[in-house]
């Protein structure tokens, strides 16, 4: 007994205690629900067996059925486009802004802080605002584009199959840019100045310095941002619900919205769960990337 107490105050027991409690909490509150989803994907589920675990086991037939649906591949393709374009857009804009504010001018840090407001806005509100701005006939975005001569007729962002997905991507990029910017700012500020000075003396120009110093030095930040971005993007749900509802004709439907739609609009819980399991596999991949990127961390 004394040994246990002393381990709690002085040894491994302290660490294990600190970690076990939250991990146990997370396991109960997130792990079990996750497993419940995995279980459901192998079962036949309807509304009346939601509260139970014993249900007819159907093996992989949910998966087989899912992939025989004509909309499955287009929706996964949309998911890929959504994730890639969102991350690329957020990253490019975020990086651009981070580089811009890295140049120290008066007011830089204050203005940079302002950009973060997009991040603290509730997703629901962001969705509502963008829904309103992207509206085809009265939307202010169409008006601005028309006035500036970029378009001649209104773009029906939410209803035109070739724009709907991009409308959500646009809103999502807006939402996520600031997060990328701040993380990249951190990465930038952690590169020692003398590296740039050395490169400059070695005759590297701005672009060469960027490619040979900045990018390589930020490899671990970039890895973390991209994999966190992947997780956040795959979680993005509010914007779809608020702007396009996955329409028209699934043109802007993505896995996470589709899974919800199947579960709660068509009450096909098993199939919804099946999609979420496929998503889990993808995110496992992202998590591996993230954890590997942290390997390059150094204790400061």
């Amino acid at each position, binding site marked *: 007994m004394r040994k246990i107490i002393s381990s709690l105050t002085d040894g491994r027991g302290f660490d294990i205690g600190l970690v076990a409690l939250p991990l146990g909490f997370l396991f109960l509150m997130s792990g079990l629900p996750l497993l419940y989803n995995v279980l459901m994907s192998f079962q036949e589920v309807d509304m009346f067996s939601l509260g139970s675990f014993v249900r007819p086991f159907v093996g992989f037939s949910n998966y087989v059925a899912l992939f025989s649906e004509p909309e499955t591949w287009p929706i996964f393709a949309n998911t890929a486009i959504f994730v890639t374009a969102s991350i690329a857009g957020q990253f490019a804009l975020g990086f651009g802004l981070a580089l811009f504010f890295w140049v120290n001018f008066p007011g830089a840090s204050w203005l940079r802080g302002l950009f973060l407001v*997009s991040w603290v806005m509730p997703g629901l509100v962001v969705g509502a605002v963008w829904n309103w701005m992207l509206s085809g006939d009265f939307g202010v975005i169409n008006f601005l584009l028309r006035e500036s001569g970029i378009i001649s007729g209104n773009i029906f962002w939410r209803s035109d199959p070739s724009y709907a997905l991009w409308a959500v991507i646009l809103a999502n990029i807006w939402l996520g840019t600031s997060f990328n910017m701040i993380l990249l700012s951190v990465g930038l500020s952690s590169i020692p100045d003398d590296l740039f000075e050395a490169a400059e003396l070695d005759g590297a120009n701005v672009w060469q310095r960027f490619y040979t110093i900045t990018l390589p030095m930020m490899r671990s930040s970039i890895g973390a941002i991209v994999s966190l971005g992947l997780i956040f993007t795959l979680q993005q749900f509010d914007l779809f619900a608020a702007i396009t509802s996955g329409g028209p004709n699934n043109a802007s439907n993505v896995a996470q919205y589709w899974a919800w739609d199947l579960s709660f609009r068509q009450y096909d819980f098993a199939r919804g769960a099946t999609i979420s399991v496929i998503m889990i596999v993808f995110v496992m991949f992202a998590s591996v990337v993230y954890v590997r990127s942290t390997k390059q961390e150094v204790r400061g």
Partner: protein
Amino acid sequence: MSETTRNRLMLAIALVLAAIYLFPLYWMYITTLKSGSAMFATPPSFWPSDPQWSTYAYVWESRNLARYMGNSLIIAVGAVTVITLLGTGCAYVLARYRNGWVDVGLFLILMLQVLPASLMITPIFVGFSQIGLLDYPRLAVIIAIAAKAMPFFVVLVRATFMSVPMELEEAALVDGNSRVGAFFHIVLPLARNGILVSAILIFMQAFGEFVYSKSIIQAVEYQPASVGLNSFMGPNTNEWNNIMAFATIYVTPILAVFVLLQRRIVSGLTSGALK
């Protein structure tokens, strides 16, 4: 180009960029001041000719916003408390060691936040109903949010702890402190800024949480503002000015807090919290 000219130019560009980036926010505010017909006017007016300030009072009264905001506040404070209490220690341990177990821990923590809340809600609802937690709906939501947002907190705060030199803790141990004492006396005070910033960010997320609250909290007197906003939006409405007024009243306090604290938040984020 002289230093001042360059600075002025950069500042001007920065202002333009900020104006573009913050336009959605501006549009939200400006829409609240428009009347029903002005909202749908073409071309839209970028400055309300006849600001309808009464919209705010109307929405505040008719939608019982005070109660909604109070609930949002309770839920956010609760979630932040739970997350900070549980997540800080976890982040500390994950920062202190660098081995296979830490990798496994980090991996698990990230894995657990894979699915969007919209897909987690059914199992959570089922689980909560089994243990009777649904009788305390706000507590149930606090716990659900804590589980959802803790991984993010842990990742952020872990980075903060990484920036506290291990030797300080060791010095405290040699100086005669226990692990517990060293953690509370030395490590925690030094990581305070990063923890505070992460907690504020979690608070803001929890303040805007919607999916769990919508499903778990059935009694209207316990619902937070996000649910109130949603029941206002619904499919059968085009009162965008009122909706935006609701949204404005809802987010303005967080934005205000944010803008007031932003210096601290940004410096907290840039100096180590996310390294």
